[in-house]
Structures are given as structure tokens and as C-alpha cells.
């Protein structure tokens, strides 16, 4: 009897309880829903934690303590923020395009959540193990672009429109290096399936084989998330809050929660593809430990994202565009060429 670990045993227990009264097909479908709900709740809890963590770690990077008044070490700050935002009046300006305005907030959140379904959170712990998992994730995460454009356009405000246009330009131009950097990894494994990619990293993590690709993915990921040195769309000093100018209260909070959910998703992909996924010591003895290793690596990636954000100054929008098109795309193409040549030589020499 294979040792499946605590979390998967829990899943099996739920499955057998469900199959007592339901047909096998329905049981399978409901199991996917249950596992997705579990992932959703877990990620949302993490997002709430990240709200506080960003401010605390941001403070530490700047030699100050961050929020430390609410609760020990500021741990109840997120609750204070949530209460404040719920109590705020949601002002919708008169000439705003109401359906688009309201839909934009939701539309930013949905792709991040959809992408979470395929990420392998541990050994055998992806909600759905798609054969084209990576392809699905990349296509779903591109939908956030139109949500920002909707937010900017519907706000009926020149700053929001400008911010929305900048956001779209930035996100579209950095999609290409993002995808091309992952192509190197796909060439090495020959599969888009996350489980296969992780299995191919049992001996050596792909960050060792593809360091340039990791760097390109990291930079393109920052640009995709509209954070760090690439946050021109929400540049507070320049265009107030860009496409988010007219949003207040819970609607605004939705955008920020979506940004953190996206952060977790992108860090999850980076961990899966470059940092060996859920591999780690003693995973075969305690399979539930794979979840712990995965989350540790995700938080290491999040630390890197935050480190870069709280250090580097904002990149000007035309510098940003020229960096993406004129430097990152040729570099990622070069990476693909070198990887291809390397694979061919590897096979030709019969290693």
C-alpha cells in the first residue's frame, strides 16, 4: 500500500465518503470541485497574509518595522484593513460605464484563480492534471490584460485611460519573453504536463540548466504583475492610481487581492518549472512534506519579487517597452537556440 501522506489520505477519505452515495463519474467531478475549493481557500488565506507581509517586509527592507500597532507585530493589520475597506463608501462616478466598471474588478481576479487549478501544490496535489497544463496557465493568465483596459476605459478619466493603455502595452509586450523563457524548459522535458516537468527535475533543478531563462522569466513576471520597478500603470506619483483611480472600498481591494493571487500563481509556476516543484529531502518518506517544500519555495520566490520591488526605482514607460522588445525578446530567442543546440549535441554524443 503506497504511503500517500496526510493530505492525499484526507482526499481519499472524502472521495470514499462521496462514492458511498454517488456514481463514480459524479464522485470524480465532485472531487475536482472539492480539491479546487481547498486550493482556493488556501490561496485566499495566503493572499490575506501577503497583504501584511508586503508591508512588513517592505518596512524591513527600508530599516523600519512596518505595521506594528494592530496585534503582536502587526499581525491583525489585514483585519483592520478589511474592516476599513468594508465600511468605506463605494463611490461610482456618474459618467462611468457601469457594467464594464463593475465587471473589470471581477475579471482581474478570475484568471488568477483559474490558473491555480493546474499548479501542482505537492506530490499528486494538482486539482486537475492537464496534459497541456502550462499552455492552459499561460493562456488564462493573459486575460488580465483586458481587465485592466476595461478598468481604465470605463473610468471616463484621462489618467485612468492613460494608465490602462500603459498597462496593456506593458503586459502584452512582456507576454512574449515570459512564454519564450519557458520554452527552454519545455524543450528539455518535451512535455507541457506539470507532473512530467517536475519529474524531470528529480536529479537537478532546471534553474541550473536554464539560468538565463529563469532571469528572463523573473523580469517578465514582474512586468506581468504590474509591480516592482515596472509599475508605471499604477505609478502613484505620476497618474494617481492609473486605471484604479476611480475605484474605492471593496472594489479597489479586489484589484489588490487579484494582484497578490497572481503573484502566488506566477511564483508557483516559477517554482514548478525552475526550482524543482515539490522535490525536497524526505519527500518519499512523508509525501505530505512535498506541500511544505513547495510552499517554502513559493515564498522564496515571493521574497525575491518583494526584494526587487522595494529596492529599485520605477522604470520609465518607454525604457520599459524598449527593454522588453529590444533586449528580452532577442535574449530569450538566443536562449532557445542555445538550448536547442545543446539538446542536439547531448543526444548526438549519446550521453
Amino acid at each position, binding site marked *: 500500500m503506497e504511503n500517500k501522506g496526510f493530505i492525499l489520505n484526507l482526499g481519499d477519505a472524502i472521495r470514499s465518503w462521496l462514492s458511498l452515495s454517488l456514481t463514480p463519474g459524479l464522485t470524480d467531478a465532485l472531487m475536482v470541485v472539492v480539491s479546487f475549493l481547498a486550493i482556493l481557500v488556501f490561496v485566499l488565506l495566503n493572499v490575506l497574509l501577503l497583504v501584511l507581509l508586503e508591508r512588513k517586509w517592505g518596512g524591513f527592507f527600508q*530599516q523600519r518595522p512596518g505595521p506594528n500597532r494592530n496585534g503582536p507585530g502587526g499581525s491583525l493589520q489585514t483585519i483592520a484593513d478589511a474592516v476599513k475597506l468594508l465600511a468605506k463608501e463605494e463611490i461610482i462616478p456618474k459618467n462611468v460605464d457601469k457594467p464594464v466598471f463593475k465587471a473589470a474588478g471581477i475579471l482581474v481576479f478570475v484568471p488568477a484563480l483559474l490558473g491555480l487549478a493546474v499548479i501542482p501544490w505537492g506530490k499528486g496535489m494538482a486539482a486537475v492534471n492537464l496534459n497541456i497544463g502550462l499552455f492552459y496557465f499561460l493562456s488564462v493568465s493573459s486575460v488580465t490584460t483586458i481587465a485592466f483596459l476595461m478598468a481604465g476605459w470605463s473610468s471616463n478619466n484621462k489618467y485612468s485611460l492613460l494608465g490602462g493603455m500603459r498597462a496593456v502595452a506593458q503586459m502584452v509586450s512582456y507576454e512574449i519573453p515570459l512564454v519564450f523563457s519557458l520554452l527552454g524548459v519545455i524543450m528539455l522535458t518535451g512535455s507541457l504536463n506539470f507532473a512530467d516537468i517536475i519529474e524531470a527535475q528529480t536529479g537537478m533543478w532546471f534553474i541550473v540548466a536554464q539560468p538565463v531563462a529563469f532571469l528572463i522569466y523573473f523580469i517578465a513576471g514582474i512586468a506581468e504583475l504590474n509591480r516592482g520597478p515596472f509599475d508605471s500603470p499604477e505609478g502613484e506619483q505620476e497618474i494617481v492610481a492609473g486605471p484604479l483611480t476611480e475605484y474605492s472600498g471593496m472594489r479597489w481591494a479586489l484589484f489588490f487581492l487579484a494582484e497578490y493571487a497572481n503573484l502566488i500563481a506566477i511564483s508557483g509556476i516559477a517554482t514548478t518549472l525552475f526550482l524543482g516543484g515539490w522535490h525536497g529531502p524526505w519527500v518519499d518518506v512523508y509525501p505530505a512534506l512535498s506541500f511544505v517544500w513547495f510552499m517554502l519555495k513559493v515564498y522564496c520566490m515571493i521574497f525575491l519579487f518583494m526584494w526587487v520591488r522595494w529596492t529599485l526605482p520605477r522604470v520609465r514607460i518607454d525604457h520599459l517597452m524598449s527593454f522588453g522588445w529590444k533586449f528580452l525578446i532577442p535574449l530569450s530567442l538566443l536562449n532557445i537556440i542555445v538550448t536547442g543546440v545543446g539538446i542536439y549535441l547531448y543526444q548526438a554524443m549519446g550521453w
Partner: protein
Amino acid sequence: MYGEGLVKGLSITLKHFFGKTITEQYPSVRPNLPKRFHGSFYLDNPKCIGCGICANSCPNRVIQLSTIKDENNKKKLASYKMDVQYCLWCGLCVESCPTKAIQFTPEFESATYSRKDILLDLFKPGEATAPSEGAPKEASQAQ
């Protein structure tokens, strides 16, 4: 190396992350002020001879003092008011006082709720007695 500044900046913030915070938790922890801090004012009434040099040296005429002559025809301080809303905290009054009667204190939390509370009255009638016999000049010679 291209991009050297980025790496240097990142290493500095990493060091800051694991180091101590340099902020003071102000209301619960009071700051450690230097000895010559320009805060509020304190008049050492026995030392004041009522010469008026501080009032003359003030650029904004903040100090208003008056003297009376007592029964021995000696000059005594009668009142000493400072309208601190016009004060520059330049320290010329403190620097120019011949007896070091007016001094700075380290108190900096002096915001008030109304304008009339800003006026500082530093005259303390009970203490401001010049020596009953002889002028201060003679008192210092007697020392």
C-alpha cells in the same frame, strides 16, 4: 559591468532586511536629545538681573520684560513674557544672556489648542529677588 548599480542596491537592501530597524517608536519611546537642543525656555529667576539684553537681541521682539526699582533703588525683574509664536529658536537670547539666566529646555511637544496658550510667562515672583543688600555686582565681588 552593466547593471552594477542594480546589484549593489539589491545587496544594500538585503543587508537592511536582516539588520535592525532605525526608527524610534515615538510616543512610547522618547528620543535621546542632545544637550544643546533648542526646545522650550526656562528662566532661572534668581540669576536674572533684568538687563534686557535678551529682549534687545531677539530678531522678532518675542521677549517682553519689565523691571521695577525696589525700596533700595535696586532693579528687579517685574515680568517676563515670551510670545513664542514668533520665536525662531535662533538662540541669540540664550547666547547673549550675561548671567545665563534664560536657558533652553529639551521639551519639544509644545503644541497648544488656542493661540493665547502659546504665550510663555517665565516670571516667578517668589524667586526673583535680587540680593537684599547691595547690587549683584557687589554680590559677585563678595563671593
